[in-house]
């Protein structure tokens, strides 16, 4: 009756061999293809480095001016514009300008990647139940697997640096935009879709004329969530060599510097709030036609 009290596990030798085989196999794989994959991501690295340098090397008043004008164009709210200016001034005054710019660069690039990959994926999921059936569990894994676990193969493949960090951020931050694009398209009023069909709309006319515009509020919620999750990964990605606000936080943890951790942490929060408010305002602005008000 031994097997009742002790789980009949695989014998040690076999287990060890299995793990070894996986490790070796992956090592072989990364030796064989690592360089190729690295080259594949080269343009991404260039873009990221270019953006980071641009943000850090440009005179700070110009950077603030550009950011604030973007905020105004997108959100059209004085409150947000004033808040954003104040945040960046305080961040700069407290000596976190460069780190903030580095973080801004990686967040922007990873959000861009997530949008470019995530929205088409979401559209594919909305189009076919089978695709949804396949992708949903993958998204579940991406969101729940501890980041450290997928950092291992990424680092084995690409080493330590910006690109692995970027990939890690994207893996974690992409699911919401995929999910919400899918959801948004599936929630489009059935009768409006029927009307488009009845007038002979083609697939693309339906997608760009009806589904995407009507799904925009949800897609925007997805973008918003993606940005928030990318920011949440700032500290973890700094563990594999990404510069930015995460690095000082990491240093603060290991050395118990309370003030350093707090300041950099608050800077991340400030960025998060700015991104959130701006994207939410933009989403609301897109929805103006839904309100019954008569002023155009």
């Amino acid at each position, binding site marked *: 009756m031994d097997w009742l009290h002790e789980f009949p596990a695989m014998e040690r030798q076999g287990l060890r061999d299995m793990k070894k085989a996986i490790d070796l196999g992956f090592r072989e794989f990364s030796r064989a293809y690592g360089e190729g994959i690295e080259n594949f991501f080269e343009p991404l690295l260039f873009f990221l480095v270019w953006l980071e340098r641009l943000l850090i090397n440009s005179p700070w008043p110009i950077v603030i001016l550009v950011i604030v004008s973007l905020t105004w164009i997108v959100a059209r709210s004085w409150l947000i514009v004033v808040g954003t200016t104040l945040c960046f001034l305080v961040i700069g005054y407290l000596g976190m300008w460069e780190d903030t710019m580095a973080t801004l660069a990686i967040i922007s690039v990873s959000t861009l990647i997530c949008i470019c990959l995530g929205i088409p994926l979401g559209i594919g999921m909305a189009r076919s139940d089978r695709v949804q059936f396949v992708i949903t569990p993958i998204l579940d894994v991406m969101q729940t697997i501890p980041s450290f676990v997928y950092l291992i193969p990424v680092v084995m493949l690409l080493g330590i640096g910006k690109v692995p960090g970027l990939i890690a951020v994207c893996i974690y931050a992409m699911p919401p935009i995929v999910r919400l694009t899918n959801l948004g398209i599936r929630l489009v*009023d059935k*009768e*409006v879709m*029927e*009307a*488009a*069909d*009845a*007038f*002979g*709309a*083609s697939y693309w*006319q339906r997608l760009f*004329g*009806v589904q995407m*515009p*009507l799904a925009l509020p949800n897609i925007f919620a997805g973008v918003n969530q993606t940005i928030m999750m990318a920011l949440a990964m700032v500290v973890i990605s700094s563990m594999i060599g990404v510069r930015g606000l995460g690095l000082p936080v990491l240093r603060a943890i290991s050395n118990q510097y309370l003030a350093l951790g707090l300041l950099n942490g608050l800077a991340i929060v400030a960025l998060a709030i700015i991104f959130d408010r701006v994207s939410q305002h933009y989403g609301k602005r897109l929805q103006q*036609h*839904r*309100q*019954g*008000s*008569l002023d*155009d």
Partner: protein
Amino acid sequence: MIDVKVEISNLFKIFGPNPNGIMGLVKNGISKHDLLDQHGHVLGLRDININVPAHRIQVIMGLSGSGKSTLIRHINRLIEPTSGEIIIDGEDVLAMSQLQLREFRRSKISMVFQNFGLLPHRTVAQNVAYGLIIQGIKGVEAIERSQQWTERVGLAGFENHYPAQLSGGMRQRVGLARAMATDAEILLMDEAFSALDPLIRTDMQDVLLRLQEELHKTIIFITHDLDEALRIGDQIAILRDGAVIQVGDSQEIIMNPADDYIADFTKDINRSRVIEVRSIMDNAADASGPELKSTMPIEDALQILINATNNTGVVVDDNGKIVGKVDLDRAVSAIARPDKELQEGLRYK
């Protein structure tokens, strides 16, 4: 002989996992209830045969669940049939390829929906132009045609409003203008006015009838409201449990209901307003008295008959030719409900 525009024959629709396998049972006349209970399939339509006359308003009437919305969606194939054919201008809609179907929907047929189906992110003008934009008509022509239809349905001045800023009746005017703007010959209206309150509904019926007087489109109009059916329908088909139980004009439906089911729900209508003198006249070539048009409702004829000598009038057709006579007694008894409905226990269950 009236031209037939849409010829629906032997149309069946069964919802469920294996509709083709179950067709045999349905053709042998299994009841809707048994089909669902024993085989897990829902009978949508059973052997529909309707010839829709060209340039007329064909009403398809039925209570909810009778399959009327399913039927109208077969005509432009928003729903695929299980078997049957729908011939429009010599072409079987159900045999069209996807490309042909799209072309057919763009040019020949358009549709108005119960809950309007407007694009909430587009203005009135853009919504009206939707069918044109889908067809690839751009710029000035689309704007002009959209403008023209917006005005014709009485929405001038609202071009730049969004649907959310309009009332229900106005929204359906947009729906109607959108359907008219493509100049399609066939117009499908799926309970188009059912979501509107009664006054607005009558208003919209007037708009439709007025447009129809000029345009002579072939209109297929779905409704659950008998008054509406009688008011606008040139021909009425009544549907129950997915099958047609009577096809005829308003007079036939009222005067000769095919079964108790129809008799039961025609009994609450205002008979004096619906029944026309042609339905109650006696054939006679030599009568004398005031002239009554054959399509005059009894309601209008009563006063004339009361004032006439012998309480009798002659019925004349559109050309003024005498086709019959009618007297007051007959007119009054036609307004009274048929005898059998006064007995108890005949209510349809």
